[in-house]
């Protein structure tokens, strides 16, 4: 059973270490735009997908690898929780 706060924390940690190394962690909120603001590009999105599938043992579909589901930590958490 996945806990929402754990998912949020894991995703947040991954994004900070993989895409925002050296940045102030307090600036990354659950609503910060990731794809539409350019933090995640197409390859970054694929890295995130690979991380989510491996870390939470879920399988994502192609149409879920878009800003609609992955643009913020809140949306990513929602997607993972729905699986």
């Amino acid at each position: 059973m996945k806990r929402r706060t754990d998912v949020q924390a894991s995703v947040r940690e991954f994004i900070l270490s993989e895409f925002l190394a050296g940045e102030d962690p307090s600036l990354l909120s659950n609503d910060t735009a990731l794809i539409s603001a350019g933090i995640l590009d197409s390859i970054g999105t694929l890295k995130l997908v690979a991380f989510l599938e491996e870390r939470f043992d879920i399988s994502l579909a192609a149409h879920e690898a878009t800003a609609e589901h992955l643009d913020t930590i809140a949306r990513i958490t929602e997607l993972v929780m729905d699986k």
Partner: protein
Amino acid sequence: MKPTVSRSHAEVVPERGARPRCKRGAVEAHHEVAAVSAGDKLGSAAWFGLLFVAAVLINRLELETAAFRNVMFVGCAAAFTLHFVPMRLRMAGFTALSLGVMVWLLGYTEGGWRCVDGLSKGAVVLGIGLVLISICRWRIGFWPRAGLLMMVGSVVGTAAGFSVGGSSWNGVWVLVASIFMFRIMVYLYDVSTSKQLPRISETAAYFALLPNMCVPLFPVVDFRTFAKSRSARSTWMLYERGVRWIVRGVIHLVLYRFVDRVISLRPEDVLTGAQVTQFVVASMLFYLRVSGVFHIVIGLLVMCGFDLPETNRRYFLASSFTDYWRRVNMYWKDFILKVFYLPTYFRFKHCGPTRALVFATLFAFLMTWILHAYQTWWLRGFLSFSWPDTLFWTVLGLLVVGNGVWELKRKPTATNRQVSVGGTVRVLLATALTAAVIAVLWSLWNTTTLSLWLTMWSHADLSTVMWFGGMLAVIMVSKFVVEVLPTASAKTIRERKSPKMRKAVYLYAMHLFVLIGIMIVSFPTTHERIPAYVRPILGCMTSASITGNIQGYYDQLLDGPQGDTTSYDYGQQDRIHKVLRPVTDLRQREMIPGLDFVRHGVRFVSNASGMHDREVPVAKPPGTIRIAVLGSSHVMGWGVTHDQVLSRLLERKLNNTASLVNRCEVLNFAVSGYSPLNQLGLIEHSVRRYSPDIVLFVSHSVDQEWTVMHTQRVRAEDTKCPYSYIEQTLLECDIAKTSNEILARCRLLPRGREITAWAYQQIVVECQTIGALPVAAFAPLPREGELLRRLASNRGVKDALQLEDLMASGFVVMDLRTVFDGRQSGELALRRWEGHYSHLAHQLVAEVLFDQMMNNTTVQEVLQRPVATN
């Protein structure tokens, strides 16, 4: 390079239904809402004002097609109206307006605007759309739906291929293609991957995008993004973005003109190392036209309340090939990513991320290549696969694959690494390398054959490298100033938190300044106040004519469908060219005999001798005095009928005058675009055969600029010129056949008055040789109204000098400078945005000309002289 964390988006675009972050008292919250509401109204009104200024400028500069410019005005009005429409009705309101514009544009035919045509053609577009959308929404499997869509597409394609409905229906097929060829794929994909069917109102608005009605090459808007883009906050912040993009689009289109007229050259004209760089750089910069149009159309949609993303973002400053792919035409990238790249990647995911990425990227580029040809087929009617095209997409695809694999395997690094000297240097060098390779690839894509491209490169030498280095240095400096420095200081700026209103006022002032600046530059009177050597450069940026030196993929598509001259008005430029055809003598162009077509509701007919006049026998009838009228398009009567043109009106007045014993015949020899230099060729070629008694040359203030232009053309087109003076002048000004058109004119312009005065003298000599009295009438143009004259006081001085030159040349001069006094330029011009003489202007000129001729003793002597009556 990674962007720093930005909270701006989360702050500006809150999630729908999101709760406020902090609790406030009810009274405090109420006051805040009231304050925002009042400020928002003011801000929104201000940005809408700027939008109308932008629309006026787009018309003033004659950017893109006439339909595009008209739709800009309609779009402005629509956006303003939609601001007041309740949110729940906005989608429906937007769709209704778009469909109305579609019917309006499709209603234009050879015979003018016809409601029946608009409705019937609109119904066909609507019918096809309903069938396609119904198939997408049908609850059957994905592939059966895709198969059915392909079947319907084939039927429509066959109809388009066989031009069903005739040439006037070309616009319909192009419109159908432009709306559905890509968006139906996106829609099918989104419907197939959604749990619920999309709303009908969202679907209708998605396909009926207002600016798409006049722009065939349209950004592939994503359905889900569009459906969610209906902003719940039509605030000044949204409008600020819309106007910002429209202004940026205008700047791109103006710069494109500069590139086209000053930098571009045909690949076959490349003869030196420096010209190699010139062609390569121009090829890359030609994309400015696409990005300009895309910025404007998406900006217009944003103004209509759709919070859509940007289309292109500083693509010249990309620091890698993947970065370039993400920045240039972002809508296309998103479309390919969603429909082809991600499904392929997920299909091959089990092979490992690297292999999946390679397969997905290669497939994405293969589809991009095929879909570009598919797009050409729908919009232009032919498939275009060539070696340059194939190589362009193959090389770019492989570069992006390599870059993508490297990015996938790269270890995470600090996002602020570029603040260090080493990081900055690496980013700048990567940007330069990317720009260099992309520019070379663009030059390949914009060359028709591989052998021509290789021949062009055979001229490369050290100067090519030096000029290329200069171009890359400019790009690196731009990258440093525009992207590296702001990123380095981003944190500081964020902490300062300057008030939003102050920033908005600054942005507003900046955009207003840019628009007004371009507007001022666009007035001919401004050109007269600036040094002669930069005048042609400013002139080319504000003039609508395009050289066509580089016919890139996108230019062909933006120029519109071949043969369609009605609903889109795309063929307007072609039609103007079709009125004339090139000749090798000093006329340089001649009017095509036997023309008969309708333009803007007025029939244009040329006679068998290539005159905008009735059929005229060469032999002069007995008892007749012949007056040959020479001039440009104004005098020719562009946009008026034979009966309304000043030569006919003058003839009627002369023949109705009882005091004249002879019958008068006034023949219209005027041809669109003729300068005094061309008139010399015309007298020699045609006028002399008609044995005129008087040659009436109507002169305008543009004589000097046009004479310079046509003098340069003598060398560029190898015109047969019997005058050694012209040859000598071209030699003295160092004008070669391959000289850049604009730069050559810059060199000739200081001698413009001298060359024009010489041409006047030669016209007089030629007239005397054929026994005709040379009369010159100096007449103003409609746009040079009283207000402009006052604003540019030296216009009067220049006119006086031109009159002096005409008199000194030996003409009998008719001074018509005050003919339009007291009249508005709007009533003197054919249309608000077309400066040719209206019927009224023709009447006024004919009346004053008649009076002055009747009061001039020299002219009277000719008119009253006895002529043989048998």
